[in-house]
C-alpha cells in the first residue's frame, strides 16, 4: 500500500516538475547588431542575419543551450558607429542579452565593443577585419573571423607571385579600407621591397571615381587592388573596366574584399568581373568540415541563395557562444568569457581556438582558411570559378586566364 502511494507521489511530483520545466525554459537572449538600412551595407547585414537565424534554428532543434532555446534580438545599425553604440547599449541594458554577435563593419565593432567592455558582456566580432579591434585587448571581445593582417599577408604574397612591379589600390575611407591598405603596404615592404605600391582613399558615399581612375589610363599599373565594399566597390570596378584599366591584358584586378560571392555582385558588375582574381574566405571546393554542408544547405533552403563566407562567419559566431555556455554551464559574463577563451570547437570552417598573445593576435583565431580563385566567365558562380591558390597549392601566374 505504502509503496504504491509513494510511487504515486513520486510520479505526481515527476510529472509536475516535467510540466513545470517545459514552461520554465525562458530563452537565452543573444543580441545581434547588423546593418539593415543604408548607408551601411545591407547586403552584408542580411547575409549575417540569415546565417545567425539558420544557426539558431539548428541549435534550437537540437534542444537549445542548457535546455533553453536561443532567441536572437536584432538591432539595425544602419552602418553608423553611433547607432551601433546605441544598439549595443540597448541590447545590454534593456534586453539583457548574454552576448553580442553579428557586427560586420569594423568601425561599428570599434564603437559597439566599447559598450560591451564597459558592461563586461562577451562580444563576438563576426566580420570586423580591422587589426585595431584586436589591438585594444578587451577581454570581452573574441574574433573567430578574418583579420586584415591575414588578408594583407595573402594579398602581398599573391601580388609578389604575379610578378608585379607597380601596384595601385583603391581603398574605402573606413577602418577596414585604410587599415588593410596600410597593412598591404607593410607586408609588401617586408616580402618584396622593390614593388612600388600606392593606395587612393575613396569616399564610399561618392558616386563617381573617374578623377582617381583616369590617371591610370596613361600610366597603367600591373595590379589594381580592390579594398572597398559594395555599393561603392561596384561603381569603382565598373569605372575601372570602362576606362580600360583593369582587368586588362597588362593589368590584373585583385579583389581583396572577396566580393564575388555577394548575392548582388553580377547584377551590378557585368563584364568588369571577368578575369578578376578574388581573395576568398569561402569556396565550395575548399576543404571544410561536415557542419559546413549542413548549415550551407539549410541557408540555401531558407534564402534561395548560395552560401557565402558571411554565412559561415555568422554561424560560427553563434555556435562558439553556445559551445561556451555549455562548457561554462552558465550565461553569466565572467564564466562565459573564461569559457570562450578556452574554446576548442570545430565550427563550419575548421577548429576554432583563440590566441592570447597581445596585439593583432589577441583573441583571434589565427589560422583562418583562405583561397584565391579566378572568375573566368561573366555571371560565373563561385563554385565554377577555378581555385588558383589554397593551402598546399601556390599561385602560378602561367596558369591564369589572361583578358
Amino acid at each position, binding site marked *: 500500500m505504502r509503496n504504491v502511494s509513494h510511487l504515486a507521489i513520486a510520479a505526481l511530483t515527476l510529472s509536475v516538475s516535467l510540466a513545470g520545466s517545459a514552461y520554465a525554459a525562458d530563452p537565452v537572449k543573444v543580441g545581434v547588431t547588423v546593418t539593415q538600412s543604408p548607408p551601411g551595407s545591407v547586403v552584408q547585414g542580411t547575409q549575417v542575419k540569415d546565417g545567425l537565424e539558420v544557426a539558431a534554428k539548428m541549435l534550437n532543434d537540437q534542444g537549445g543551450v542548457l535546455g533553453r532555446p536561443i532567441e536572437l534580438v536584432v538591432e539595425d545599425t544602419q552602418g553608423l558607429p553611433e547607432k551601433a553604440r546605441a544598439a549595443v547599449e540597448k541590447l545590454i541594458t534593456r534586453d539583457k542579452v548574454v552576448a553580442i554577435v553579428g557586427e560586420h563593419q569594423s568601425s561599428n565593432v570599434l564603437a559597439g565593443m566599447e559598450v560591451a567592455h564597459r558592461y563586461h558582456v562577451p562580444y563576438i566580432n563576426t566580420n570586423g577585419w580591422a587589426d585595431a579591434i584586436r589591438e585594444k585587448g578587451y577581454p570581452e571581445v573574441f574574433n573567430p573571423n578574418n583579420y586584415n593582417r591575414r588578408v594583407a599577408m595573402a594579398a602581398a604574397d599573391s601580388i609578389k607571385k604575379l610578378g608585379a612591379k607597380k601596384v595601385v589600390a583603391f581603398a574605402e575611407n573606413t577602418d577596414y579600407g585604410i587599415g588593410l591598405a596600410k597593412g598591404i603596404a607593410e607586408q609588401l615592404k617586408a616580402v618584396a621591397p622593390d614593388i612600388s605600391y600606392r593606395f587612393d582613399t575613396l569616399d564610399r558615399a561618392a558616386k563617381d571615381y573617374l578623377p582617381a581612375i583616369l*590617371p591610370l589610363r596613361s600610366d597603367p599599373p600591373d595590379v589594381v587592388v580592390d579594398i572597398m565594399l559594395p555599393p561603392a566597390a561596384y561603381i569603382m570596378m565598373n569605372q575601372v573596366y570602362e576606362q580600360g584599366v583593369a582587368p586588362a591584358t597588362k593589368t590584373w584586378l585583385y579583389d581583396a574584399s572577396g566580393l564575388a560571392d555577394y548575392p548582388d555582385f553580377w547584377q551590378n558588375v557585368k563584364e568588369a568581373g571577368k578575369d578578376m582574381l578574388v581573395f576568398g574566405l569561402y569556396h565550395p571546393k575548399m576543404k571544410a568540415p561536415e557542419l559546413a554542408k549542413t548549415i550551407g544547405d539549410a541557408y540555401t533552403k531558407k534564402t534561395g541563395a548560395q552560401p557565402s563566407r558571411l554565412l559561415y562567419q555568422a554561424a560560427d559566431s553563434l555556435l562558439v557562444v553556445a559551445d561556451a555556455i555549455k562548457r561554462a554551464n552558465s550565461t553569466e559574463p565572467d564564466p562565459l568569457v573564461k569559457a570562450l577563451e578556452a574554446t576548442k570547437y570545430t565550427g563550419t570552417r575548421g577548429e576554432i581556438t583563440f590566441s592570447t598573445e597581445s596585439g593583432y593576435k589577441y583573441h583571434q583565431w589565427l589560422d583562418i582558411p583562405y583561397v584565391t580563385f579566378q572568375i573566368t566567365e561573366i555571371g560565373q558562380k563561385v563554385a565554377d570559378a577555378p581555385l588558383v591558390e589554397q593551402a598546399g597549392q601556390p599561385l602560378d601566374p602561367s596558369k591564369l586566364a589572361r583578358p
Partner: protein
Amino acid sequence: MLTGALAADLAVNGLVTGLFYALMAVGLALIFGVLRIVNFAHGEFYMVGAYAYTIVAARLGVPLAVALPTAFLFGAALGWIVERTLMRPLYANIATWGLMRDEYAVIVTFGLSLLLVNLVDKAIGPYAFRAPALVSASRIVVGPALMSGQKVAAAGVTLVTLAFIALFLRFSYWGRAVRAVSQNRLGASLAGIDATAVSSLVFALAGGLAALAGALLSPIINASPDVGAFPAIKSYVIVVLGGMGSILGAFIASLLLGLVESFGAVLVSYQYRDTFGLVLLILFLLFRPQGLFGERGREV
C-alpha cells in the same frame, strides 16, 4: 603628371558632367528668375525623377522611350503642385511672415525636402534601386575618352533637351513671358502677362528638368532617397556662379564647374573636390554676387 592624353580625358569627362549639372541648374535658375527664391527641395525633384523612371521601366516594364518622358512629367506635376500650394503666399500678403518672405521660402522648401526624402524612404524603402540602362554597351569611344554607353546616351538626350529649352525661351509666347516676368514682374503683369501662371509653368518646368536628370543618371547613380542631395548642392553653386536668374549663365557655369572639379580632383586634391564649388560659391557671394552673367544691382 598632366599629359596631353590625361588632359583631354579630363576635359571630355568634365564637360559631360557639366552637361548633367546644367539640366538641374537651368531649372533652378528659372525658378530664381521668376520667383526670386532658392528652391531647397530641388534635389528631391531629381530624386523623384530617378524613382519614377526606375519603377516605371524596371517594375512595370514600360519601354524606355516612354519611361523617360514619364519621369519628366512626374517631376513637372510635382513642381506645379508645390508652386500652387506652397508658393502662393509669396505673392499674396501673409500677415504672419511680413517682410520675411525669403525666410518663409527657405523654411518651406527645406521642410519639403525633408518630407520628400523621408516619405520615399518609408514608402518605397531605403535601398538603392537598379535602373535599366538606355544603352547597354559598357564602353564607347568618345574622342580621346572612353565612356559607358549610358553616359553617352544621357549626354545626347541632355543636349537635345537644353537646346529645346533655349529655343522655347527665345521664340515661344510662354518662353518670352517667362523672360519678361523674370526681368520685371510688375511690369510684365501690367503688360497683360499672367505672372502667376508663369510661376506655375516655371516651377513645373524646373521640376521636370530635374526629374529628367535624375532619370537619365539613374542607371549610373542608382535611385535612393537621399540621391538628390549631391546634385542639389551642385546646382546651388552653379546658379550663384552663373548669376541668379541667368539661364545662359547657369549653362556656362555648369560646364565650368564640371571642368574645375575634373581637373581640380587630379591636380589639387581628390578628396576635397566637392569643396571647390562650395568655396567658389562663398567667394562669389561675397565679392561678385551677381555671378558671371547676372544683372548688376541685384539686391543680395
